[in-house]
Structures are given as structure tokens and as C-alpha cells.
């Protein structure tokens, strides 16, 4: 059951009210392997969209393109109406300068499957590092904010711990806090519980449920936790071989999928 209704998707075009993310004719090739071809979809402000689909269908690639971890082969990605990596200049497609890219990238955060905490820093330093050195927060401010975030993820007492002293689930909660500390408008979650022992998954999902309930951060979620997807997302996109083959509200997608491939896929994972 979604905890919020999807925002009104009108007013496309204006960057204040238009969609948060627009993928336009997106193409991604690795060498000769075409992973995404002519992909189009948009995500509204505050909307939470879950991407599902078999392994290799291109879900991770989409998130990595948004995070600018992969180079876009063709097409355009817009964030708040502004081009992320490539812009249309008349008929031409031009690559943006890295300064422009990083200005817009700052609105995007990502949590990875493997947590990737910095092993040369304490839990607290992992969270305060970027706010201090990227956002220019004072040390005291960053510390106070980080402790608040650690409280939200239930790890305030572990602030001084070393990442290796934490369980995988705790590490991932710190990684979520670290991403939130940058106050992203868009949060990308790529199978954030897939590397965890089953008994640790629940706490991490609970933290994300809280984030979904208490913030209006736009989220793109890749997950195999279908109950979680149903609880937090406004919309579900089913991918197969780089294409969206079905798009529906979670209720419809998980109870009455239309496409045969979706039915097979859901049968296999549920």
C-alpha cells in the first residue's frame, strides 16, 4: 500500500513543476552489446518507482547512467528539466562539461549493493566527510546532522565504530545515512539488501520505509523484495532485455500482471 499518492504529473516542461527525471531515447551499449535501446520514461517529483525484471535486463545500468557512473551512448537524461550529461543543440547532441554535470549530479545519491563504506574512516566520519568537504558544512553541524541520521537508522551508539565492526545490515544502514546526509533530491537504490543475510534484510527495509514515509525524496528502486516494493512504490516498471514491457501501480503489477513475461517473472520470485 503506497503511503503517499503520486504527485500530479502535469506541467511537464517547466523545471519547477515538471518531472524530476526524464529518460529520452536512452541508448546504452557495452561494446557491441546493446543493453538499452530507445528507452523512454519519466519520474515525477517525490515519486518512488521500482524497477523489476530478470537479471541482465538493464536495471542496474539505468541507475548507473543516472549516477553518471556509465557513459550514455545515445539519447538524453534530464533532471528537473536540465540535461544531465548530454544536451540537444539544434540537431546536434553535445556532451556537457564536467562542471555542469557535477552541479546536477549533486542532486542525486546512490546506495550500492556492496555498501562501500570507507574503511579508513569511522562510521561518523563516513557520513560527515562529504557534507564537510563537498557541501561546506561546519564540522559541528555535519556531526550533529550525522548523529541525527544515525539515530534514524538505529545506530547512534555505533558512531565511533569502525565499519568492519558492523554487520552487513548495519553497514548498509550507515551507507543509507551517508547518502541522505547529502540531502539528495533523487535517491537510487540498487538491490541494497541482496548482499545481506536474510535475517538482516528487515532492518534495512524498515529504514527505507521510514525514509519513504518521512521525506519526499524521489526514488528509483531496484529490488527483489516484492512486499517492500509494493509498500513503498507508486509505480512499478517491468523490464525485459532493456525494454519496459509493463508499467503499473504496485497493486496491479503484483496481483494482476498483464504481460506473460511479467507473470512468469513474478511467479519465479514470489
Amino acid at each position, binding site marked *: 500500500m503506497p503511503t503517499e499518492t503520486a504527485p500530479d504529473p502535469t506541467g511537464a516542461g517547466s523545471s519547477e513543476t515538471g518531472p524530476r527525471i526524464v529518460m529520452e531515447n536512452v541508448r546504452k551499449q557495452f561494446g557491441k552489446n546493446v543493453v538499452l535501446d530507445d528507452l523512454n520514461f519519466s519520474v515525477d517529483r517525490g515519486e518512488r518507482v521500482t524497477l523489476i525484471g530478470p537479471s541482465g535486463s538493464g536495471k542496474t545500468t539505468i541507475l548507473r547512467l543516472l*549516477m553518471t557512473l556509465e557513459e550514455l551512448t545515445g539519447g538524453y537524461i534530464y533532471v528537473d528539466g536540465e540535461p544531465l550529461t548530454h544536451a540537444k543543440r539544434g540537431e546536434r547532441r553535445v556532451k556537457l562539461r564536467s562542471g555542469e554535470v557535477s552541479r546536477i549530479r549533486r542532486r542525486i545519491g546512490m546506495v*550500492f549493493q556492496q555498501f562501500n563504506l570507507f574503511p579508513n574512516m569511522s562510521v561518523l566520519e563516513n557520513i560527515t566527510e562529504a557534507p564537510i568537504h*563537498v557541501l561546506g558544512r561546519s564540522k559541528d553541524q555535519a556531526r550533529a546532522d550525522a548523529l541525527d541520521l544515525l539515530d534514524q537508522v538505529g545506530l547512534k551508539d555505533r558512531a565511533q565504530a569502525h565499519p568492519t565492526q558492523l554487520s552487513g545490515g548495519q553497514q548498509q544502514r550507515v551507507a543509507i545515512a551517508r547518502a541522505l546526509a547529502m540531502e539528495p533530491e533523487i535517491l537510487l537504490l540498487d538491490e541494497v539488501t541482496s548482499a545481506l543475510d536474510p535475517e538482516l534484510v528487515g532492518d534495512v527495509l524498515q529504514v527505507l520505509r521510514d525514509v519513504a514515509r518521512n521525506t519526499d525524496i524521489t526514488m528509483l528502486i531496484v529490488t527483489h523484495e516484492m512486499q517492500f516494493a509494493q509498500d513503498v512504490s507508486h509505480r512499478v516498471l517491468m523490464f525485459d532485455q532493456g525494454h519496459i514491457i509493463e508499467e503499473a501501480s504496485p497493486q496491479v503489477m503484483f496481483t494482476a500482471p498483464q504481460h506473460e513475461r511479467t507473470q512468469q517473472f513474478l511467479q519465479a520470485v514470489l
Partner: protein
Amino acid sequence: MSDILQALSDYRPYLWEGLQVTLQLSLGGVAVAIVVSVVLGLAAISPLPVLPVVSRVIVEFFRGTSLVVQLFFLYYVLPPLGLDLGPVGAGIVGLGLNYGAYGSEVVRGSLNAVPKGQWETTLALSMSWPLKVRRVVWPQAWALMLPGLNNLTVMLVKGTAVALLLGLHDLTYWADEMRKDPDVGLWTAYGIVFLLYYLIALACSSGLRLLERRAQRRLGLRADVAVTDRATAEAVA
């Protein structure tokens, strides 16, 4: 045994001079080599377009040409051009550039060996290149590069013997002088100098091993060592 003590006392001032020259070349060479390693290693992985190529060319030049020729170049070709480093200076710079070129490969390899996920996370946190390298990647790469740099340091210390070719009176020179002295045996002459080189190399390498352990402990590696240390302390107490 008495031979050795006799030789040591006869040659003490000379050995002392030789030791000083060798130490100057070793410490100076290591200092230059470290700076060169770090600068060329960072340049090699920098996102700027020309720096990696420049770094590559410099590294290939120093690795691909003879150290002896490089030293002669520094010692004989530069002074008429107005840059006279003197024999010790030429030795330090030559050793530093040569071993620094090898060291830069160690530095580059270690920076690249930091897991991709770490680099990607710094991008997701919008860290600039200098920031991510300084605060995240370097501290992790540091632990990885120390064993390689340690090796090169030991090789550099032993390699200072080429200073002989610049007419410097280093340890090797005095070993050779002692050899020619009929009162000092061949074995004694070289034995003493072997030992002195060994001690210098051992001191350098122990220092670096200490840094290595500290770096690993900081990364939460070698928790086993920390635990063992504590267990030992408890057992002793």
C-alpha cells in the same frame, strides 16, 4: 675476529666517511624517489588529458635507459649547461628519478587496486578528484603500496654503490681500498661492508614495515594482530 677489529679500527675514519656518503645517497635518493613516485603515480591516473601520457613517457625513459648513463648525464652533461649538482647531488637525483620511475608504477598499481566501489561511491557523494584521492583512495592505497616501496628502498640502498662511478668515496669504494691493503683480508674487507649495507637496508625496511602495519590497522585489517597484541599483553600482565 681480531683481524676484523684491527681493520675496523685502522679504517674507522674512512669507513665513517664511506658510511656518510652511502647514507646521504640512500636517504636523499629515497626522499627524491618517493616524491617522484607519488607525483608520477598520481599523474598516471589523473583524469586530465595530458598528464597520464607525460607520466608514461617519463617512466618509460627512466626505466628503459641505463642508470649509469643517467648518472653520467647528470654529472658530466648538466654542469656545462649551468646546472652543477655535484657528485652527491647527481647521485641523489639520478637514483631518485630512476627508482622513482619504478616506484610510480607501484603507486599507480596501488591506487588502481582500491576497489572500484570505493571510487564509485566518492562520485555518488560528489567528491572532487583531489578530495576523493586525498581522503578516501590514498589512505587505502597507502597500505597496499608500502610493501612494494619497501622493496624498492632496499634495492636503492644497495644500488647506491654505483656512486663509485662518479668518483665518490662511499662504502663500496672503501671496501675496495681495504681489499688492496695486504693487512686486511679480502673476506674482512667485504664482510664489514656487506654488514653495513645490510644494516642500513634493514633499518629502512623495518621503518617501512612499521608504517605498513599501522596503515593496515587503520583500515581495520589485521584485526587479528590487534587482538593478538592484546592477548599477549594480557598474558604478560
